[in-house]
Structure formats: structure tokens, C-alpha cells
């Protein structure tokens, strides 16, 4: 049996054991076992028959960075809900813990939530900003979208050139949290 460690959206982790039995998989969670008859369908879809009875479509999309062996981020669609999980096998979780944990996300950065054009900046480096204050306006699909500061702080730098087209996830504005100023 192989064990996977799953981190749920709320940070809680659970362990699930898996073993193959014929064409089915046996999943063990605590002292409960379930039989899974899983069929892959075109387009990343799969169909699950749980304990030979309950029927579900699901889509599993691995969202992690391929070059990082400790990045197990995955988005799973069941019904009309998407669940963001982190799934690593037991061995890799131990290795990750030994190496010293995950990267820290930069706290006060505003990234482009979609591809678009940087229309205008509403702040300059050095400006003090408060949570919810607009920092930059990005145009996508003819709509102007104002992106706001997540917390109080000081604007460190403006990263994308004014008027330039940026990709989704591009760093636009970095903000130092107040405590770091």
C-alpha cells in the first residue's frame, strides 16, 4: 500500500492509503476502506464508481511547478466545485520536511490575475497604502480592472511597463508590509 499526504484548502492534512486490487483501487482513510472503480475519459475527465454504487464525474488537473518535486498542487473538479489540494506521496513529504519546507510567497505583491494591458498606476514607489487601496489598473476584454493592495504597507516598486501587455501572473506592484518598513 502506498500512502499519500493530502493538504486540504483549510490547511488540514489527511493521509490516504492506496493499493490496486484487480482493476479497482482500494482507498484507506483511517479505518475506513472504499473500493474505487475509476475510468479515464477524454479531456482529463474521469468517472468514479464508489463502492460499486455512488457515481461521480471528476476532473484532476495537476497545477504544480513541474521542476519542483515537492510541489503537489492539484485542482479537482467534482460536481460544480473545484477543490484546491496538495497531494504528495509519503516519501516526498518526508524529504521536503528534511530539506526545510516550502518557499515563502512574497507577501505584498500584486500580480496580474489575467492577461491584459497595464493602463495606469495609481501609486508611486514610496507611497504609503492601505488595504483595499487601488494600485494599478489593468485592461482585459475591454474592461478596466483595478487591483488593490492586500494589506497596509509601502509601495516598493512598479514592475511592468506602463501600456505593456502582461501575462497572467506577471508581477505588477510590490508592497512592503508595514512591519517591514
Amino acid at each position, binding site marked *: 500500500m*502506498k500512502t*499519500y499526504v*493530502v493538504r*486540504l484548502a*483549510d490547511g488540514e492534512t*489527511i493521509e*490516504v492509503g*492506496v493499493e*490496486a486490487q484487480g482493476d479497482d*483501487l482500494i*482507498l484507506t*482513510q483511517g479505518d475506513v476502506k*472504499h473500493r*474505487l472503480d*475509476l475510468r479515464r475519459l*477524454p*479531456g*482529463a*475527465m*474521469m468517472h*468514479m464508481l*464508489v463502492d460499486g454504487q455512488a457515481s*461521480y*464525474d*471528476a*476532473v*484532476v*488537473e495537476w497545477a504544480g511547478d*513541474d*521542476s519542483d*518535486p515537492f510541489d*503537489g498542487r*492539484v485542482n*479537482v*473538479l*467534482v*460536481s*460544480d*466545485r*473545484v*477543490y484546491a*489540494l496538495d*497531494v504528495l*506521496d509519503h*516519501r*516526498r513529504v518526508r524529504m521536503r520536511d528534511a530539506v526545510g519546507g516550502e518557499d515563502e510567497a512574497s507577501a505584498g505583491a500584486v500580480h496580474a*490575475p*489575467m*492577461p*491584459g494591458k497595464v*493602463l495606469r498606476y495609481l501609486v508611486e514607489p514610496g507611497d504609503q497604502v492601505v488595504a483595499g487601496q487601488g494600485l494599478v*489598473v489593468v*485592461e*482585459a*476584454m*475591454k*474592461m*478596466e*480592472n483595478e487591483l488593490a493592495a492586500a494589506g497596509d504597507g509601502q509601495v516598493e516598486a512598479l514592475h511592468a511597463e506602463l501600456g505593456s501587455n502582461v501575462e*497572467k501572473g506577471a508581477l505588477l506592484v510590490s508592497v512592503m508590509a508595514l512591519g517591514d518598513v
Partner: protein
Amino acid sequence: MSGPIQKVLVANRGEIALRVMRTCREMGLGTVAVFSEPDRTALHVRYADEAIALGGETSAESYLVIDKIIAAAQKTGADAIHPGYGFLSENPDFARQLETHGIILIGPRPEAMEAMGHKTKARAVMIAAGVPVVPGSEGPVEGPDEAVIEAESIGFPIMVKAAAGGGGKGMRRVAESSALHAAFAAAQSEARNSFGDDRVYLERFLDRPRHIEVQVLADTHGNCVHLFERECSIQRRHQKIIEEAPSAFVDEAMRKAMGAVAVQAAKAVGYVGAGTVEFLADAQRNFFFLEMNTRLQVEHPVTEWITGLDLVEWQIRVAQGEVLGFKQEDLSFEGHSVEARVYAEDPAAGFMPAPGTIEHLHVPSGPYVRDDSGVSAGSEVTPLYDPMISKLSVWGRDRATAIARLDRALAEYKVVGLTTNISFLRRAVMTEEFRSGDFDTGFVGDVIEGAAPVDDRYEHLAVWAAVADAFLRDQKLETQGAQRQAGDAGVSAWRRYALVGSGGHS
């Protein structure tokens, strides 16, 4: 402008281009699509009998270039052009140039577009015709300073709106004088980018009105009827997302009054074809003229469901000079219809557009379900155009049946590859407020937020699916990896395989 039309060029893309072509097919008419470079394999191009490349990427380089559209019509011998909605559909210049070239526009006369297209002019025409309007500035406002003076006399909160506007673009709500400068600049800039006209005007902001509109249909022989109302109060970012007909709020007296005013408004500008008169209504059932859209609306299917009429068919018939086949007293409606717009957007992130590639698509079907989608598996939803991927409409014998059916159909919708608002739409139609019919334009934000509340109903299944998928993948890759060479302890077998595969060093 008469004589039977043989071949229709649709100067649009996406779901509306398909919707128009479907009726053309049913009427035995030829269809011509036009397309930009990114739309080479779009569904509307594949559906049409003929398709002409416009070149260019953005709308401004393709779907908005009048000369290119006319050249495409001439090349294919199309004798009529259907503009759909958006793009050139309300452009009087386009209408005039088609007239010059002897091509029939399936739409109103340029004079009607001009009178209604400019919101401040439309207000003046409506006031003259005795149609009630929302209090506001008499014409476009020169600058932010003048706006402050005007706004203070009209009273806050106030809406800054693009004079040439529509579709919620170039529109800002302002609560007080101090915020007016910024809103004025933003509305101007959006108006300039969207309509090439940066004039803006002010209108009093009605607190939580309902947005109700009336469909009208007029021929070239002086006949004009209304096809009842549509309720469009469920909006986000000033754009409609759920529409229905009839409105749960409108009683028979209000329906008659609104219908009469809508016909009066259409007649005041000599309207021909299908058009929509939009009203704002307050809780006391007072209603004010908001604007007239001189084109087919996105949400026209709900009217088609309850009246049994094909609005595109009547647009075409009227455009070739036919007389409307019915009088107002011949018209009635049956049952209830609800439509939901499926967008590539992220409700949890303020309904921001979420472009991407549709990897897998399963659209709903079954009794009384209509899916007008403009995409298929493999379609890319680009930041260049509107992020709507489909409108889903249903019919039921009564409102409750229609709502249950819409929820059922939304649950069948599967879009893989990008983020959509489907789950949000389901939450919206299932709220007590929506079901009771007691809601207004403040619904999104007041009753329901974009971000979904925690719902872990399916979480354990998501966990099992992910773990099972990881297990099968690891098993397969370990087998393959073992065939290559013994592993090093730092990288797992499947990761190594992934690296080798992508690096091409095998």
C-alpha cells in the same frame, strides 16, 4: 430596401453569429462568416457556408472595420448583413455605407440608431415624446469641475455614463463629490477605448432599482408591437447575468403600461426591426426610460421561449419589407423562461475575466433546454473579445419549474480548462431571494457574494480522485522509469521521467 434576401453575411463572432446562421439555414438562406486571425477555427467559421478572412487580431483590426466587412459581402454576393450585437450593430455610419452599396442591413435605419445611440439625445427625444426618464444632466458634461456642480444639483449618489455607451462600459457610480474626479476620468477613458467617444453625462443613481426591458418589433409599414418584458436585474459589474421572462415583479397593469410606452418610444424614432426599450423600475412600480438598444439583445431567447416567435426570422422578414404577421392583440405568452450567461471569469476574484483554452466541454440538453454556445472543445477564450462562452436558457410551465430546470441544466454543464461562473450561477438561482422573485439590481453583493462559501460536500471525493490519479500516474511512470535506469534518491521516478521527457536527453 426590399426583395427576398438570398444570402446573409453575419458581421459578428461567437454564439450570436451561430444563433443568426441557424435561423438563416432554417429559412433556406446562404450564410457567410467573417473572422479575425485568432478566430480561424472558431465555431462560427466552421458553421457557415462561406467564410472570409478579415485579417487582424483585435476587434478594431477586424470585426469593426467597415470596409473589410463590405468587401467580404461583395466578394461572396451576400445581399444582407446581420450585425448581431456589439461591434457594428449600433453604428449609423455602417448602416449608411451599406445603403450606399445596396446591401440590406438587418436592423433599424441609421437615423433611429443615431437618435437612440447617443444616450443624451435619446433622453431628449423621449422627454419630447412624453416618456418618463431618470433625472440627470441635459447633455454631455464638459469636465470634472462642471460635473461636480451638475451632480450637486441632481443629487448624490450619481452615475457617470458614457454618452455613446452601452453594455455597462464607461459607467461609474459615485457617492460623493470627492470621488467624482477619479470616476469621471475612468469613465472617459473607458468610453474612449470602447466607443471612440469620450463624452460622458450624469444621471441620478436610483437606489436598488429593478432593470426591466420590453422587446419591440416594427415593420416598414408602420406596424409596431411589443413582445412583453424581460427581467434583467441580476447583474454583476453592471452587466446582466441572469434574465427571465415574464418578470415576477410586473403585474398586468404595469405590463400594459410599459408595453405602450415602449411602442411609443420606438415609434418616436421611426424604429424598424427588433429593438429593446430598457427601463429602471422602483419598488412602487414607477418606471423610467433608461435607453433603447437598436439591435438584437443577448437575452432574446427568453422572449422566444414564451412567445414561440423566432426574433431573428422576424428581423430578416422585416428587413426584406414584409408586413408583421400579427397585431398586438394576437400576441400572448405562455409559461416562464430563464437564461443564465456562462462566462469565462472568476467570481471569487471580483468576476475578473479568466481567459484560457477549453480542453473539454459538455453542454446540457434534455427537455426544454437551449444552449447557445459559441465555443467547442479546443476553443481558446482570448482576452481580445468578450468572455461570454454561452447562454443557457430553459422553459417551464411556471417560474418554479423553470428555475429547477435551469439549475439541473447548469449542473450538467462541464467546462474543463478555464474558470467559469457556472457554480456561482447555480448558487444565485438557488437563493431564497431569487426563488421568491423579490430582488433588485443589488442582488450580487447584497444577497450573494462572488466568492463561494465553504462547501466541503464533495471534498472527500476530490481527495480520492486526486490520490487515485496520483497513484495510477506514479505506478505507470515507475514502471517506465525502472526500464530506463535505477533511480537516484533525490528525485522520484515519475519526476525524473518528466524531466528526461521534456529535456529530450533520453
